[in-house]
């Protein structure tokens, strides 16, 4: 097949056809994967909820309510067992992470005690700051069963009660910051 001449018409035609075909196929793949992507996101959220909350039998994702704090949004997921509130999970954030914003899911019992914490999203250094993730290390176990009323959410260096991750004080501070933000807004009338 001979190369086509680079006339204006030919160039326009070729680019239009290529762009049309590619956007059509992209749209097709997007439609195809839309369902699975949404399902994967929901599964991730449900998994996080289950790991941070006591046993529940409602659908916290359907009862979610939100509150704008510090230029971002906190999401509250109330968990009930037989319509009795057993805890609230708060999807919280901190912009102070070493590699950018971190997002956590913090599960609180009705009295404000931390039940468990799961990391949703972070860009911390692999091997150092990423130890906040339970998949990488047991560091975040120290938060379990603590009530921020008498457990100061700050690293020991800053006069708090949290043992920082070795060589990752910044990541640890961000983690505390996120948990504290969740606790404060939950206590300030965030609980429903």
């Amino acid at each position, binding site marked *: 097949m001979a190369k086509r001449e680079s006339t204006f018409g030919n160039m326009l035609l*070729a680019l239009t056809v290529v762009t049309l075909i590619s956007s059509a196929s992209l749209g097709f793949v997007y439609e195809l*994967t839309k369902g699975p992507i949404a399902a994967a996101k929901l599964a991730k959220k449900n998994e996080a909820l289950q790991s941070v909350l006591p046993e529940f039998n409602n659908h916290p994702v359907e009862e979610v309510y939100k509150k704008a704090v510090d230029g971002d949004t906190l999401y509250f997921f109330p968990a009930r067992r037989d319509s009795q509130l057993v805890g609230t999970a708060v999807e919280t954030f901190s912009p102070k992470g070493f590699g950018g914003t971190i997002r956590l899911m913090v599960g609180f019992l009705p009295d404000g005690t931390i039940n468990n914490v799961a990391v949703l999203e972070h860009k911390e250094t692999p091997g150092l700051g990423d130890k906040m993730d339970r998949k990488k290390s047991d560091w975040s176990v120290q938060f379990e069963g603590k009530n921020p009323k008498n457990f100061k959410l700050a690293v020991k260096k800053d006069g708090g009660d949290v043992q920082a991750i070795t060589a990752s004080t910044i990541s640890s501070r961000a983690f505390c910051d996120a948990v504290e933000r969740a606790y404060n807004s939950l206590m300030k009338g965030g609980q429903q």
Partner: protein
Amino acid sequence: MNQWNNFSKGIFKENAVFVQVLGMCPTLGVTTSAYNGLGMGLATTFVLLMSNIVVSMVKGFIPDKVRIPAYIVIIASFVTIVELIMQAFVPVLFDELGLFIPLIVVNCLVLGRSEAFASKNNVLSSAVDGLGMGLGFTLALFMLGSIRELLGSGAWLGIKFIHGDGMLLFILAPGAFIALAYLIAIMNRVNRRNA
């Protein structure tokens, strides 16, 4: 050229990372573990294979002056397809690789093969070339990831060999540069001896 040579040149003689020093950003950025290196390599291989095939199919239709933008559109489409598929079926890996998935589009290796090979050869040769180059790239990323994971966290493919931490330096940014420097130096030596 017979197809076997065509395939194997991408893995050894013209290896994208060790010999041509192309696609350095993902090579350094995502190789904190062997698994991530493998995932990134395979994603790139897919894009390379598909874009090589399509470019060699449409090469007669595209006028010379607009071939680069046309190739970029083709490559970007396949990158987006990979993005969507990974998001749907391997969301954890997608989160780990993050920014580097859309950046496959500016991996000089991909555009380089379209321009230098697929635009001049038939579909079969181009497919073989893309596959070879992609697997060579994957191999390099997997090796670098393995070295960094072994030295940095004392593990391989997530299996721990030692208690506690390894030499953290290798997981961090400086270790990426240094490990790659030695790998290239070793490959230089091996290639020179074979030549």
